[in-house]
């Protein structure tokens, strides 16, 4: 018994001495000592020993017992002398647990395994795409059901999510669009001034903000802000088995969790896009006034006379589609979270990346479509 042990008093580290065919171990054979002995193994005594004497050991832990067992094996079954009952027991336990009782076959690392890995990832990607499409169908079907029975719509949840994804995003969206307007005016003016066409900066700002940038950048911000929040919130519920609890109570998670979120996004994203349009025009007008001397009155009249209202409409038409993409991806990723925290993190970042990517793809498709129909 060591009594109330003092932390400062470090016990003497283990030492190995060979006398004849007898190996004597002294000191404390603990994990640190074992680490040191293993490192300096080259200096270990070479001649075979018949007896390992552990009488002078002051302490021995699992690592120590392991080292004694390996020492014994190296000296071809030398006997262990003067071990206490506890030490003998520990050595026996360690010897028993040193070798695998049911070895696991090693995983092959060859070209076939590599190809199989690629194949698995491709199949998983295709399956995910299929799952997202079928989830979209499920949400649409649930929405159709809600149209027939409007009282089943969770109005409180819808309003709550409208506040979360819409109202609370107004400051950041407005600021972002304002700065984009400023940058466009500044960069545009530098180019247009070269051939005295400063006043066209109004058209440049109006068309790019209204048609593309206002809504696209709003969608990207909302994907980062609300899409990730959807995935994390639903994923955490999945991890805590709340989703399973809902199903057993006869509640449809799609109707309860997904539809209010997706509808809230589809209602609020056009509104946010509208705010971004106004804010971007404001920023552009301000910069045009400061940098080019285009007065607000000139900006306004040029904007009204020269910019087709269709530019604005194109932006607004895209908004609900982007909202649907962000909402579906965010909720679907949340519902497919596995049981651990790692999976939640992966799904949350995956959700943001995938929804931003699909929003940009969809924007490109819209460009082709509107160019074809001629607006």
């Amino acid at each position: 018994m060591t009594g109330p042990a003092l932390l400062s008093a470090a016990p003497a580290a283990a030492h190995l001495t060979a006398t004849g065919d007898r190996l004597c171990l002294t000191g404390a054979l603990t994990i640190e000592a074992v680490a040191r002995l293993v490192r300096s193994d080259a200096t270990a005594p070479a001649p075979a020993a018949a007896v390992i004497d552990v009488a002078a050991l002051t302490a021995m832990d699992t690592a120590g017992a392991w080292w004694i067992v390996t020492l014994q094996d190296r000296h071809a079954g030398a006997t262990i002398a003067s071990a206490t009952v506890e030490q003998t027991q520990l050595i026996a336990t360690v010897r028993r647990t040193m070798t695998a009782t049911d070895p696991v076959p090693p995983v092959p690392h060859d070209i076939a395994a590599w190809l199989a890995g690629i194949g698995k990832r491709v199949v998983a990607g295709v399956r995910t795409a299929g799952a997202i499409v079928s989830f979209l169908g499920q949400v649409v079907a649930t929405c159709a059901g809600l149209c027939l029975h409007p009282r089943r719509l969770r109005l409180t949840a819808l309003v709550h999510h409208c506040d979360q994804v819409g109202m609370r995003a107004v400051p950041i969206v407005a600021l972002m669009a304002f700065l984009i307007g400023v940058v466009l005016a500044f960069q545009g003016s530098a180019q247009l001034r070269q051939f005295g066409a400063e006043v066209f900066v109004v058209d440049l700002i109006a068309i790019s903000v209204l048609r593309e940038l206002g809504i696209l950048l709003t969608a990207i911000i909302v994907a980062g802000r609300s899409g990730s929040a959807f995935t994390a919130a639903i994923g955490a519920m999945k991890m805590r088995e709340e989703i399973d609890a809902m199903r057993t109570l006869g509640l449809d998670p799609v109707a309860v969790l997904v539809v209010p979120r997706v509808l809230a996004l589809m209602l609020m994203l056009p509104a946010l896009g509208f705010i971004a349009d106004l804010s971007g025009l404001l920023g552009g007008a301000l910069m045009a006034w400061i940098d080019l001397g285009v007065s607000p009155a000139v900006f306004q009249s040029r904007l009204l006379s020269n910019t087709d209202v269709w530019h604005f409409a194109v932006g607004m038409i895209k908004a609900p589609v982007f909202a649907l993409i962000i909402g579906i991806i965010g909720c679907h990723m949340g519902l497919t979270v596995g049981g651990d925290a790692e999976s939640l993190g992966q799904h949350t970042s995956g959700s943001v990346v995938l929804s931003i990517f699909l929003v940009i793809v969809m924007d490109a498709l819209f460009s082709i479509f509107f160019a074809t129909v001629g607006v």
Partner: protein
Amino acid sequence: MTEAPIIRVRGLVTRFGTQTVHDGLDLDVRRGEIIGIVGGSGTGKSVLLHTIVGLLMPEAGTIEVFGESVRDTDAATTRALRRRWGVMFQDGALFSSLTVRQNVEAPMREQLDLPADLRETLAAIKVRMVGLPEAAMTQYPAELSGGMRKRAGFARAIALDPEIVFLDEPTAGLDPVGAAAFDALIGQLQAAFGLTVFLVTHDLDSLNAICDRIAVLADHKVLAVGTMEEMLRIEHPWVQAYFHGPRARAADRGTRTASPDMAH
């Protein structure tokens, strides 16, 4: 002469806001014993464990482990103290991004400077010691069952051959066979390492099977400490209800007859 207690708690006061959990709690744990901490829900069993290992700061009182105060020591002493105890949380609290073996290696990696292959060998020994199959070594916590997670958590707690292990409800959520096996495991390893075990539990069978002494938490204090027989004689409504309730009688019967479940 009696030896100084390995854990010594005096006048512990813990509060969360206005809610008092412990008020003047005293407890001694002797070296080499298995002490079971019982008490109704909300009596602060887990809070006591968290306070002793320094995860919660009490309002007042002293806590000494190995004769060193846990509350006010410098970082180096705290680190040295942590090296000498292991904690197993309720659901194992394994790091989900690491495999079982890497989880067991984690304390070695943080506390010691070991060669990688030695660390792996020692971790594998600990994983086998707690009775996990070989395949579990490379699995992630999410792939394991609840009982296996608990075993893996226990393997991590004993990774550095600690002198004290703190176990928070090790048998909760296990089936009776699994729970009995876990009890046996705790008993075996306690004998092999001369461990002191601080066991928070609800499980009467565990208390009966492996605990040397039992401490009952009630009314913000340790109401009584003693062996199972002594507990049975205490006149306190909760203690009476706990140790003389229908479940207690079943557990008591279980120790006398070979297979109580088979009796008609």
